[in-house]
């Protein structure tokens, strides 16, 4: 089973209820334990509300913990203390004219968690069975672990589609096009590289030692790293998008001058699974 101890940050809201149902489904799917965390004052009233919520969803055998203070900090603490291996949280979102706003708590968790994280945007259609898995890889050891975990997950879900994405990018390509004098040349260079990467993808896959590699689609996309794969998953209606956690926790400058992982967490359209290995 990919995960044994699931954590869920729970709130009293319609989204909270949906999240709980989803977490309970995954608990069953993985045959795992589920531990809930509620950040807020522990009172008789709130305890009752939580109990009702759990009863409402007809879930049994869950452990409940309480914490106070800054929600992000409390969640990160909770992960450590309860040795959670998959933290589930909702991405609070408000619909703004141009783009979705992901809650700052969710973002902090995505950046700094010490375990894998599943972030689910609160939108109808985000919950339930994941049939279309999209996974991005950079061929590192880390990303082959990610691929294995994602594949295990997909098998449990009986997924219909499993796509492995590799990004390529040539900074300064436009410059070189000028000097060689033709856009055709640039296209050729891109194509050539794409073919090479396709071969690499297939070898990467065959080294994975998983059954049915034919069921996995491989695709090579051109664009800024982080952004290209994320948009590809979005355009192809991914049910769940899987990435590896960044090696280093993104800092202030990484956020301002967006790159890689930051592109992914700034545009969450489907549930996002960040795998830490």
């Amino acid at each position, binding site marked *: 089973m990919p995960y044994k101890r699931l954590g869920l940050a729970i709130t009293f809201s319609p989204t909270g209820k949906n999240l709980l149902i989803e977490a309970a489904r995954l608990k069953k799917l993985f045959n795992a334990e589920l531990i809930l965390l509620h950040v807020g004052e522990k009172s008789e009233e709130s305890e009752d509300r939580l109990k009702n919520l759990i009863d409402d969803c007809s879930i049994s055998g869950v452990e409940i913990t309480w914490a106070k203070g800054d929600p992000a900090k409390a969640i990160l603490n909770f992960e450590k203390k309860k040795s959670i291996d998959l933290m589930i949280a909702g991405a609070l979102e408000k619909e703004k004219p141009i783009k979705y706003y992901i809650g700052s708590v969710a973002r902090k968790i995505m950046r700094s968690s010490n375990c894998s994280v599943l972030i689910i945007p609160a939108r109808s259609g985000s919950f339930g069975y994941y049939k279309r898995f999209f996974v991005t890889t950079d061929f590192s050891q880390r990303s082959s672990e990610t691929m294995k975990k994602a594949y295990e997950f997909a098998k449990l879900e009986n997924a219909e589609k499993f796509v492995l994405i590799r990004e390529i990018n040539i900074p*300064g390509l436009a410059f070189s096009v*000028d000097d060689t004098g033709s856009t055709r040349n640039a296209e050729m260079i891109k194509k050539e590289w794409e073919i090479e990467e396709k071969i690499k993808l297939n070898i990467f896959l065959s080294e994975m030692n998983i059954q049915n*590699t034919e069921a996995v689609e491989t695709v090579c996309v051109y664009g800024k790293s982080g952004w290209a794969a994320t948009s590809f998953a979005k355009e192809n209606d991914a049910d769940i998008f899987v990435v590896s956690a960044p090696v280093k926790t993104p800092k202030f*400058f990484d956020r301002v001058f967006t790159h890689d992982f930051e592109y992914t967490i700034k545009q969450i359209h489907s549930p996002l699974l960040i795998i830490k290995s």
Partner: protein
Amino acid sequence: MGGLSSADTIRLLLAITLMLGFGRLLGELFRKFKQAAVVGEIIAGIILGPTILGLLFPELQQWIFPVEGPVSIAINSLVALSIIFLLLVVGLEVDLGIVLQQGKAALSIGLIGMIVPFIFGASFAYLLPDVLFFEMGDKLIFSLFVGTALAISALPIIARTLMDLNLFKSKTGMTIMAAAMFNDLVGWIAFSVILGLVGAESHGLSIEWTISLTIIFTIFMLFFGRKLIHQILPWINSTFSWPGGIISFMMVLALIGAIITEKIGVHSIFGAFIIGVAIGDSVHLTEKTKEIIHQFITNIFAPLFFVSIGLKVNFIQAFDPLAVIIVVVLGFAGKVIGCGLGAKLMGFKLKDSLAVGFAMNARGVLEIVLGIIALEFGLIGEEFFVAIIILVLLSSVLSSPLVSYFAKESRSYSILELLLPKNIYFSSAETKDQVIRELVKLVCKKEQIDEPKLLEAVLKREEQMTTGIANHLAIPHAKFDVAKPVCAVAINKNGVDFDAPDKLPAKIIFLLITPTDKNELQLQLLSEIAVKFRNKEFAEDLLNVSKPDEFLMKIKQLNS
């Protein structure tokens, strides 16, 4: 009434026609010989200018390209506009995300690679200003300028070199690119500050104001302006015609930036550059749009600017061998030592560091723009300017061969280096098992590896999934306790069944053993072999060899 008379209009149009036509013609010619088009365009200017045409037909030259009068003003305005747009596209390619992605190595190379040449140039100019034809004004500012002029790399030339050498896919290539982007950004800010120091009085702003406003403008554009543009671009893309709308938007913004910085008291081009950086960062600016604006600017505006350089200066008169030698030596030594050191400190191997140094040594457009502005400001004399142009030409022409030399030496474990004639043999085995045993025996004899264990590892991998690829190629492989990768090849003209997807029997069988902890290296080597055998004819042709050396030669030839 203002405006040009009909006769002047004709002269102006004639001048532009010659600049554009002749410049582009020589540019294309240089491209044919695999040189940067810029070099050809500069030479076209030297031919049309006082250096050659002026020497042969001084009156004709003066009539077409007058130094004074309305025609001259019109040409200069056009050139000024060209530089603004040129800097816009240079800025577009600076991607700060990539700089951060590459992290400390890029910052170290970029920064140390600027500081060292800056110190070389500035201290030399301060101690021996006369050698570099310092005439009047502030010696300190002159020294600062010389330092900056030697410290800036040319992103476009570097991008092209990496592309030519197929290095852009490697870690080293990406680091070089990121370092060059960082270098560009810091270099331009530094240069603008120096210009602020020089031109402060003429703009009516005090030096403190000019510098503070420059910094405020830069920070504002890089942090907020960039985000704002990112928000606006999708709207522009969906509301206006493509690519017309977005291109006009970019050019108008560049002009606004130029106006602001000119008003502040630094040069107008700085604003265009920063606007370029701010726009280029957005993912909403597609590669296609970038290519279009590049084509349009580098084929129309850039040639006008490069040709105009030759029109301003007499290269023979202003040629001073000593100044040229000093500038070239200081420039090369400063960059190669600085960037090389920056790379070495970050754990690059010596050869890699030198490759980084020589790649970053390439100079181009920016250096020339810098020089011409300094010349116009009276900061430097023509002799020093000519020396800079020669440094540009030399460093950009030499960049590719030198980088190629050092990078080839250092490229870690290409399959070509692993393949030794003693590890290639002709096999007559009849089964997959048999050929694997032969190969394992061969490498174990030569490399002192535990034979039974290795055999077990290879066979175990084979059990998981066949290693038969296609086009008569199979690559049985395993990770094993070895210090460096080992490779052997069996050539089997009859073929053995490897259960390859295309059902063809394997006739060329590579055995590849890689260190246990090197996942990516294994992938790289495997794919390197597989990529070579993409072409079935090539694989079949390889079977005609009769000696291991011949086999090696054919594989190597395919590489070039």
